[in-house]
């Protein structure tokens, strides 16, 4: 039996005149996500995207799992394509295709969607006939229109008739790439991958910036970030990861700045460097995984000092979340176990014993200016390393 994936657009149906453009991006993202699982024809009509396998070697299990991670879809179904757009064909298809689910269920109902108004049977008639046919095949079933174990959907559309069971929930959000581009600052902890995921969900195409301080940090710490970004890219699509050589800057920080301001000045420098990179790569915002009050550098005062370092808008999607809420998401997107691998990252090098929780911007700026980081920042920007991240690697 030939199968097809029917995908329902999410928020983009609200986009009015820009809808076509949004849908084109969504289709492109779907094609990219399906790469390596077979050949498909991806078309759209009536706020549904049709993903039709071409040939028999498509891995639909994998394809449907990947579709579940594409932003911009509210729900999706794996459906059988009826041989012909006739009532007979629908009746022949439904009990066979859904046999497994129906055998296990106790109650069911049929729901018909007849968007092709030329189809001779009206919706209630379709339901009645299909329901009757299913009961003939599975006499143990009862019809329950309020709370059925299985709902059998019959969709009569312009291109054909389809049969499927309850749709699966899509990833929601809006298509990656329709919300502009931004830089995510990523360390390798639990928070930044979650922040990246959350902003990608709002349509942002990501460029990742990572700060490496060898020999204080190891290659494994950088590899861990690559691994994390690969997991994020299953949702956010492929992206660039830019590694900033940060050793000289951190050593200068240790030598020339007051200890209690190490972290705050370091974070300001990270913002400044990231902003420069963002401009270079046409990104309009920065994203961080900061959550208010989580650590000394994430108090209102500290965030104020960090924020002042960059002119660009800074997105902090985790700002009001508890650690456990963040961890829950990291489990869901499968980054948690990688995040907790124990390697030193740039944020844990030279941490002060007593960081200032209420830094005064004026003093912070003075200390930073006195140390003269500009030449080192320029040098770091000259020596960026670029790694391309793809979900399939």
């Amino acid at each position, binding site marked *: 039996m030939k199968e097809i994936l029917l995908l329902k657009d999410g928020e983009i149906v609200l986009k009015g005149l820009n809808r076509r453009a949004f849908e084109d991006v969504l289709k492109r993202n779907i094609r990219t996500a399906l790469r390596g699982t077979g050949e498909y024809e991806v078309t759209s009509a009536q706020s549904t995207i049709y993903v039709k396998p071409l040939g028999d070697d498509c891995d639909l*299990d*994998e394809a449907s799992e990947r579709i579940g991670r594409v932003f911009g879809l509210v729900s999706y179904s794996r459906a059988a394509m009826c041989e012909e757009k006739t009532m007979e064909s629908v009746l022949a298809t439904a009990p066979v295709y859904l046999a497994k689910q129906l055998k*296990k269920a106790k109650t069911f109902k049929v729901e018909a969607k007849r968007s092709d108004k030329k189809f001779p049977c009206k919706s209630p008639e379709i339901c009645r006939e299909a329901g009757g046919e299913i009961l003939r095949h599975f006499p143990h079933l009862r019809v329950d229109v309020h709370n059925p174990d299985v709902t059998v959907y019959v969709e009569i559309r312009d291109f054909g008739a389809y049969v499927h069971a309850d749709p699966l929930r899509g990833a929601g959000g809006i298509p990656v790439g329709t919300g502009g581009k931004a830089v995510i600052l990523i360390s390798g902890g639990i928070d930044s991958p979650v922040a990246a995921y959350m902003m990608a969900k709002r349509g942002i195409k990501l460029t990742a910036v990572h700060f490496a301080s060898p020999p204080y940090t*190891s*290659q*494994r710490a950088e*590899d861990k970030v690559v691994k994390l970004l690969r997991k994020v890219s299953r949702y956010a699509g492929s992206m660039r990861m830019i590694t900033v050589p940060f050793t000289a800057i951190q050593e200068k920080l240790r030598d020339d700045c007051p200890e209690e301001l190490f972290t705050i000045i370091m974070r300001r420098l990270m913002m400044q460097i990231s902003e420069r990179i963002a401009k270079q790569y046409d990104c309009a915002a920065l994203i961080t995984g900061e959550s208010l009050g989580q650590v000394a550098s994430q108090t209102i005062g500290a965030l104020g000092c960090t924020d002042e370092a960059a002119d660009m808008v800074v997105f902090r999607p985790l700002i009001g979340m508890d650690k456990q809420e963040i961890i829950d998401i990291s489990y869901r997107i*499968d980054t948690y*176990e990688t995040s907790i691998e124990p390697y030193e990252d740039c944020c844990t090098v030279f941490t002060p014993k007593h960081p200032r929780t209420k830094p005064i911007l004026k003093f912070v700026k003075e200390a930073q200016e006195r140390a003269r980081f500009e030449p080192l920042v320029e040098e770091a920007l000259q020596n960026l390393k670029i790694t391309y991240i793809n979900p399939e690697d």
Partner: protein
Amino acid sequence: MHYLDNSATTMVSPEAAKKALEMMTEVFANPSSLHAFGIRAEAEVEAARKAVAAQLGCSDEEILFTSGGTEANNLALFGVAEARKRRCRKIVVSSVEHSSVIEAAKKLENDGFTVVYVAPRADGIIHPEDVAAAVGDDTSLVSVMRVNNETGAVMPVADIFEEVRDVNPDVICHTDAVQAFGKLECKVKKLGADLLTVSAHKVHAPKGCGALYIKKGVRLVPRQYGGEQQKKRRPGTEAAQTIAAFGVACEQFDIRANAAYVRQLNDYAKEKLLAIEGVVLNSPADALPYVLNITAGRVRSETMLHHLEKREIYLSSGSACAKGKPSHVLSAMGYDKDRADSALRVSFSKYNTKEDIDALAEGIAIGLRTLAHA
């Protein structure tokens, strides 16, 4: 030489051997060492993990390397039984499993667990309803092999696991896929397996390496304690040379082409061998073509085996791990003792040719004429 004992072990492919040598003489660092040299060795181990994962259609994080199939099977049985013993004290295995499952099950029985052994029907196949009938609320694990090592019988594990879960959705489903890996598609999602065992030396890689697929979220109590390797589930320095060679062997799989070729060999072997007076077929008709189990007259297996070895023809009487004990698999299929006592297992690989089969047919024919019958 006519090597027809590929279910016992296989020749290491030249490419896999080359990788092992390279790992031992050049990339010999400890994969856990912090330095760059260690990272290089680790990268080789991780590449192999990906290669195994690709064949099983799972994430590389779900692959745990072991010292072989036996360790993986033991870890699956003891690991799950231990982890779930507070609520569930029953496990269900088929009666034709490899000894590394059967003996582990017996040990659990000794330790107070209830073990149900499900026998195959006369067709040599374990039937889903028979397994499901043995499963209850107190069952922690079901273990049914993908392909039987003595007869090549292909077990319907996907259907078995599905019916098992209809009875109790919490049962952990394990399949020993040692004889199927590289020969038959073993995608864990299609099979519905939570745990799956493979071994390197059956697929043209060196001995001393295997892997257990552990579905994300399935909890096992480790069998050994030590360092941080493999997320502490199987501590101990990874056998990087064997693992890397295993990865290379996996990349060389060509399941479809090899199956077609071996199917031809198997058909040819059936035609030649069954034409000999006194030779009968023990393998099920639709068995995996890589294994052909026959009984040759009433000459004891071992006698025939030693007769053939003089002609440089090498095969087994049954499982090599059983070391000559009468086959529990053939008995379970309902064959009488005489038939099991004279059974021979011919097992092929892509490296075999028709000449090997001609030599075998001639050898058996001569054996049947000249050797004393029991």
